[in-house]
């Protein structure tokens, strides 16, 4: 199977580096602005929940982190799969750049989830809960990917080995997503990502949507910055890299 021509053009490292440098500041600042608006709306404007009181406001930080943890894992796995199948170096670079960002968001989702669990469930953690345990497995998959990648001297071998781990770990994503439906869980079921209307009032929903959008933009900007560094490392002998490094001196 062949890749489309436009993708080949985009996958050219100098082309990607230039495009990423151009769009990254826009994504970063619009993401930070949206996060500020969403946090203000969620913490100060949204009404308290009739059952959870103010504790539910953790949702404005927990949900974007958990959403991004899964999306970034999918990005890492897709990048690795493209690298394994079509030997595209840029795809490996993007996968390697997404891993630390995804790890940070998974850690944040776990920590904020625990801080929400204590007042609502009476415990920070429950090993019997499939959602909590499967997200912890994803945290270790990210960690495993990064450690495996860093431990192998030859970069192409490291890319392939870590890429296989990332692709195999994709099986955990549907388990995370559907764990609250398949098994009895302390964690609540889906509130927004379901076919029916969201089970949350608009006053509470809009700050959450703004926070998710802002966090997505922010994570893309950070991943692009890391991907640019990865591309420079991998292409360090190329003429365009020397020119790019000098231009930024």
């Amino acid at each position: 199977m062949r890749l489309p021509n436009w993708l080949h053009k985009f996958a050219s490292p100098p082309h990607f580096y230039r495009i990423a440098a151009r769009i990254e500041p826009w994504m970063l600042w619009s993401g930070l602005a949206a996060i500020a608006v969403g946090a203000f709306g969620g913490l100060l404007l949204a009404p308290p929940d009739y059952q959870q009181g103010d504790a539910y406001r953790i949702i404005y930080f927990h949900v974007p982190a958990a959403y991004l943890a899964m999306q970034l894992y999918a990005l890492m796995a897709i990048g690795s799969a493209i690298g394994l199948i079509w030997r595209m170096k840029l795809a490996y670079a993007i996968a390697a750049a997404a891993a630390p960002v995804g790890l940070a968001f998974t850690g944040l989702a776990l920590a904020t989830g625990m801080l929400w669990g204590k007042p609502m469930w009476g415990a920070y953690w429950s090993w019997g809960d499939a959602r909590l345990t499967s997200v912890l497995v994803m945290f270790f998959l990210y960690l495993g990917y990064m450690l495996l990648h860093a431990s192998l001297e030859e970069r192409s071998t490291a890319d392939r080995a870590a890429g296989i781990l990332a692709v195999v770990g994709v099986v955990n994503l549907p388990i995370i997503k559907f764990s609250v439906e398949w098994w009895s869980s302390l964690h609540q079921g889906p509130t927004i990502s379901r076919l029916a209307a969201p089970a949350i009032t608009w006053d509470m929903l809009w700050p959450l949507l703004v926070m998710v959008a802002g966090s997505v933009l922010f994570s893309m900007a950070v991943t692009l910055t890391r991907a640019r560094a990865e591309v420079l490392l991998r292409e360090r002998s190329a003429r365009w890299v020397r020119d790019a490094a000098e231009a930024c001196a």
Partner: protein
Amino acid sequence: MREFLAMGGYAAFVWSCVGLSFAVFAGLMLTARRRLRSVRGRIRIRQRNAAPDEGSWELRA
């Protein structure tokens, strides 16, 4: 709202999450930029030194 801002009830858990989240955002942004700057710097140093033995130069991590 006044109780929430005064850290009453469960507000301490919420504000802990807020602090943690902003610390993670700041950490991600700063480490990504520092890494890009460091890679660029090492490439410039490599260029200036123009080492004859290209293989001995290691940029990883």
